[in-house]
């Protein structure tokens, strides 16, 4: 079952050939998808041959096969992790019962909503990133961008498969709608706000893949615990792909930092103006980009108190991050969790029922994971012998969802008046001038082994290839 059948029109490891109705439905959706990719996928890539990985099976030996592939010939398909025999529901009210192979009627609407929301982020990020290829800092980075893009496309396939197979006509309609919405479009935007923000430059792209794709990782991890077995199996395989996206972000930002530190040492300065004149992105600007992407992303976890979150958990639809590794009762009834609130001019912690605070629980898990990566960026600075450090802003900084929406809080957690915020916002979030400066650095570099001035080369290449390998063959 783990081997993927590429002789089929839609490569799959789910015996699609045996389910004729489903196969017909997906084959009808496929042209719409390809058309969407033509219209909204990466620009000017039709003829380029890109060194991409393609799964031929979902086991370790087969899932990462590398080769030069024409982007327009990329084969998107449906890959599920193998089923685990005898898997039981391991949290919520149905704890200990067999997992569901089909959608129970009472959870149908909620599950559909979860799958559609997850599915919508996948094409959205492709749309957000479609122009980046024109300003790629190297072939290596261009290849990584395209890999991210095709895998986001495949993640859309994964969600549409679930919609078609398990949600009948509603599911097919949702599948169509996923191809109709457009990132940033006022009439028909993508569902989540962070996926309607533009990704205008490569620093934004790296920050997005570090912070926002990590949100994807945490959502997928929570769904991989689901009692709805097809969703759990699908998301488990998506997680293997998602790891690459976070790698692109983490290593991308690290390389920007490395280059900046190199220039700081050569010029013996930390003056942003001098560093900008030298063509690199100063650390304060990096900090502002970090503040922006971090704060926008933690909003994606939803309101700090949510009855939906409680229902999703108790009914077994969505677990916690690493649910299986936690040692508690996996029911959480009667337990509490601390969430932030504003009391006058101060942030205070309030104990609320844990079930209602599960969005906050996942957000806090996410924050811990994000902070660890920022510390690894700081090691790059420390290794260069410099005293500067990047920090993650306070959880209440620049929030637009939940209790903290609209409250003005500084990166170190002080509640501010609107006037105080206005006066200093440009110190904390990228200003128009910052964005214009970063945009001014963006220029296409496509000679193998060459890199834009503002970014260091990677430590190693992809799939043990050298850094100056021809990752993209242009027609």
């Amino acid at each position, binding site marked *: 079952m783990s081997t993927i059948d590429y002789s089929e029109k839609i490569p799959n490891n789910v015996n699609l050939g045996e389910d004729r109705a489903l196969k017909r439905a997906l084959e009808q959706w496929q042209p719409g998808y390809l058309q969407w990719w033509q219209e909204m996928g990466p620009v000017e890539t039709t003829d380029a041959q890109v060194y991409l990985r393609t799964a031929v099976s979902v*086991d*370790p*030996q087969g*899932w*990462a096969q590398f080769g030069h592939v024409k982007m327009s010939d990329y084969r998107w398909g449906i890959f599920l992790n193998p089923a*685990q*025999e*005898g*898997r*039981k529901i*391991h949290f919520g009210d149905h704890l200990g019962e067999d997992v569901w192979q089909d959608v129970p009627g009472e959870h149908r609407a909620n599950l559909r909503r979860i799958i559609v929301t997850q599915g919508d982020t996948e094409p959205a990020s492709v749309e957000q990133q479609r122009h980046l290829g024109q300003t790629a800092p190297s072939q290596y980075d261009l290849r990584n961008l395209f890999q991210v893009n095709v895998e986001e496309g495949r993640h859309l396939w994964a969600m549409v498969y679930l919609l078609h197979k398990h949600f009948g006509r509603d599911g097919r309609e949702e599948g169509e709608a996923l191809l109709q919405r457009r990132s940033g479009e006022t009439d028909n935007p993508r569902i989540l706000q962070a996926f309607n923000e533009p990704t205008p430059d490569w620093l934004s792209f790296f920050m997005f893949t570090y912070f926002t794709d990590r949100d994807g*990782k945490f959502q997928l991890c929570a769904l991989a615990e689901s009692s709805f077995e097809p969703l759990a199996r699908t998301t*488990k395989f998506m*997680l*293997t792909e*998602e*790891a*690459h996206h*976070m*790698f692109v972000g*983490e*290593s991308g930002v690290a390389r920007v930092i490395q280059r900046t530190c190199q220039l700081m040492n050569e010029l013996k300065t930390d003056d942003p103006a001098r560093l900008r004149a030298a063509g690199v992105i100063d650390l304060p600007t990096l900090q502002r980009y970090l503040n922006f992407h971090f704060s926008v992303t933690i909003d994606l976890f939803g309101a700090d108190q949510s009855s939906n979150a409680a229902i999703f958990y108790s009914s077994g639809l969505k677990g916690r991050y690493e649910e*299986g*590794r*936690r*040692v508690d009762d996996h029911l959480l009834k009667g337990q509490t969790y601390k969430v932030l609130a504003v009391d006058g001019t101060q942030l205070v912690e309030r104990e609320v029922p844990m079930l209602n605070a599960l969005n906050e629980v996942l957000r806090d898990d996410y924050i*811990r*994971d994000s902070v*660890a*990566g920022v510390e*690894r960026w700081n*090691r790059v600075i420390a290794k260069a012998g410099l005293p500067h450090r990047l920090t993650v802003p306070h959880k209440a900084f620049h929030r637009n969802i939940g209790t903290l929406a609209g409250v003005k809080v500084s990166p170190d957690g002080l509640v501010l008046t609107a006037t105080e915020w206005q006066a200093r916002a440009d110190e904390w979030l990228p200003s128009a001038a910052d964005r214009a400066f970063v945009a001014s650095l963006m220029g296409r570099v496509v000679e193998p082994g060459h890199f834009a001035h503002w970014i260091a080369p990677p*430590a*190693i*290449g*992809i*799939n*043990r290839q050298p850094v100056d390998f021809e990752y993209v063959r242009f027609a």
Partner: protein
Amino acid sequence: MSGLATPVAGGMIRQHLIDPEICIRCNTCEATCPVDAITHDDRNYVVDASKCNLCMACVPPCPTGSIDNWREMPLPRAYSVQEQLGWDVLPEPLPAEELGEAVTPTTATTALTAASWSATLPPWSAAHAYTNLYGPGAKGTARQSPVRAAVAGNVRVTEVGHDYDTHHIVLDFGALPFPVLEGQSIGIVPPGVDAHGRPHHPRQYSVASPRDGERAGYNNLSLTVKRVLEDHQGQPVRGVASNHLCDLQVGDAVQVIGPFGASFLMPNHPKSHLVMICTGTGSAPMRAMTERRRRLRRAGGFESGRLLLFFGARTAQELPYFGPLQSLPGDFIDIHLAFSRTPGQPRVYVQDLMRQHAAKLAPLLADPDASFYVCGLRAMEDGVISALRDVAQQAGLDWPTVAGTLQREGRLHLETY
């Protein structure tokens, strides 16, 4: 504990390492590893050399390439999980001259080779061990979580009135299948979370009771647990698991995973001899084997097998099971106790007693019916192995040949921590 399942050639291993500077901690390798050799804390992802079987399943899925790092290492110097968790960068490969020394055990010092003599297979007459029935290494999601055992007893086995405090703890599994053999260990998951809000890592303890139960015919087992109040450097630290265990009341629940271990197992044929060398709580598996043999003997179950025990502690008061040991008949077990801190007495270590009793040990080294078991603090390994080597050489035996035979036949086992 050192499981030492890695393929060994001339005391060398090809150790699999993850580059902490390139790794993004995405967990893909840990999720992929079929033998659960990859683990992590909030700093690093690392490979346990005693579990890694070099299957390479983790290599293609790694998004960064950080997974693809290898070092030729003499087995005793293999980087431990703890060491790797502390790294910011990969260490340089060992220089050729250090490697050259290590590959020829005859010329190398024992310091380089002590643990590498440990067998990876049990003796031929060992019973089949069940491993990884519960916990992250178990098959199937249903058994990934720890299981509950109830405390059926908790008694102190060192003399009261001193700062050391060792307990004999009996855990009952009720109707839950949890078969263990002498020499196996189990993992205890302490309750609560660590400073970072994560569940505690499980701690491994050797089973101190025989296979048919601490109380024969019941589904229970016992552990020997020393309350940890300071670390190996003498700094004050409260061991999370040991204090949890030592403070348990009868009826309390404990979270358990395991069992673990498939090589440190006793021979079962009725003429087999056991040589047991241990310090402190390293006595747990020795107590299990001894008790197994005691029950068999009472039932008329063995013929001529002999038991030889070298047991060290700082003082008699600190020696676990000191009282019960005294009451075992001399024709059943030959006991040699070494005390390294008895006031007014010279320091005596187990290896000193082994050299004194070379005449008893030498024939056993050459006897295919005799198996050797070493358990205790890691620091004892070198001393014990060099004592065995001296015993062999005095008797005109070629140590590398003897040691190679012991290892091949599953007759020499080291379990140190």
